[in-house]
């Protein structure tokens, strides 16, 4: 039952937070979620810890490699994109100020 509560609350929270993200940031958002889905890495670690037969360890190794790639790669590419997002230098900026 508690698991269901956690899941439900997380769903609502996720929905509300995602809807706040402006479309400007939708691509970085997607790559960031790639990184977050890398959280399964800890699951993979637990599996490697709990299984014994060598070939299950191999599966675990693959799982770890994949999810580690998500964590590192997702972070790096998101950061790369976000580094590029610049605000106009206040000096220049006037055009369309009214909009804001």
């Amino acid at each position, binding site marked *: 039952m508690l698991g269901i509560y956690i899941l439900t609350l997380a769903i609502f929270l996720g929905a509300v937070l995602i809807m706040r993200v402006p479309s400007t*940031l939708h691509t970085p958002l997607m790559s960031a979620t790639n990184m977050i889905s890398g959280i399964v890495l800890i699951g993979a670690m637990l599996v490697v810890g709990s299984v014994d037969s060598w070939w299950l360890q191999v599966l675990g190794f693959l799982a770890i490699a994949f999810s580690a790639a998500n*964590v590192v790669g*997702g*972070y790096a590419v998101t950061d790369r994109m976000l580094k590029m997002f610049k605000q106009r230098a206040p000096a220049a900026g006037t055009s369309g100020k009214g909009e804001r």
Partner: protein
Amino acid sequence: MIDNWRDAFIDLAYFISAVLLIISLNQLGSPKTARVGNQLAVGGLLLAIVATFFNRDIAGGDYWVILLGIAVGGAGGYVMAQRVQMTAMPQMIAIFNGMGGATSALIAVSEFLGKSDLGRGTVLSIALGCIIGSIALTGSLVAFAKLQGLVPSRTALPGNRQLITAGLLGGMALLGAITVILQDGALAQTVLILTFLLALAAGVLLVMPIGGADMPVVIAILNAFSGVAAVLSGFVVNNQLMIIGGTLVGASGVFLSLLMAKAMNRSIGNVIFGAFGATPSAGGAGTGGGESLPVREVTPDDAAVSLAYADRVIVVPGYGLAVAQAQHSVQELASLLQERGVDVRYAIHPVAGRMPGHMNVLLAEANVPYDDLYEMERINGDFAKTDVVLVIGANDVTNPAARDDPNSPIYGMPVLRVDEAERVIVLKRGMSTGFAGVENALFHNPKTSMLFGDAKASIGKLIAEVRAA
């Protein structure tokens, strides 16, 4: 309560990590804080990973397996992230979705094969996680291949598509159910492996027939899949952090798929089970019909002059700009005009380009400050007050038929009201249609003049002429 400090520390670390993930998602809500948000998220993940090393089950050789896996995977991911072109972002995300799904599927399988006497609920999570993860894996690989042009955009499979789909889903449901009922033992394990293989096949067969242009939607859906799969593996290993993290990913994937579908005026079902196969022919016809209607061409210098002496210019970048890699030249042209005192802004349609927010990234790469980029809702009212609209490799997102023509396949899709401006200059290579495959009346509008040619080349000419003007 907790009587053991080691476990207590791990629990606490997971909890903090969950909080960091939530906060990071909040920070990702604004360009100013997004970068910090991304760092908070990775911080949370690292904390969780480190904490997991203290888990008692992990001992001896496990460390080496884990460290090696992290090293290999991490290095691979880092290289990919550094190499990828901004225009290739959809492919990159496809791959990451696939790997996320793969991990969850592998966790499910090895947990089931490695442990005995698991509860029914756990087995259910295992079966579902295995199915959804596997579909995310192979589906993403196909999506990637299509985006890369490794496989043809629309591959008709032999046999009735609806039938195949139904068969696959039914088969997976059946096998999954059997696994849950058997719950344990050699037979159950065999069935699960069959489920696994069938799901892998299903990922291929489901995505293969979908049009290449719909891949962004597919990718968002598979992004959601990878999230759901993560939630399920969270239930498998009974870890709240994984449940929460996966849920956030799933929410984002669902939201973005719906957003795209809405912006393209299609239903998700329509995308996946594709009534879409029909449209392009219609588009072809449209294009055919198009030739007959009059089209005004314009010379670079004429276009340049009307740009140079305008007060207000709005640039409408589209997918073609990305293809032509013209983002940097556009920025050069824009700053040239701004030096001349022209007010230049960019109108960004939510689905311009090939994934949501794609145009923003491309233009950010070209050093366009994000406060020059206006979302459709914010700028659509201003076209009427605009002298010249420069449409660069955009098509569907400007198509007035979406407003006027109830019979048009894209009718109802919100579009940029460029035709309200004084004058419209369109840069594209020819008269061919956009991905929706429908004819665009804008190109035949008396206000509109076409400057044919590759976007980058055309803009190059414009720059030269504006310098001259």
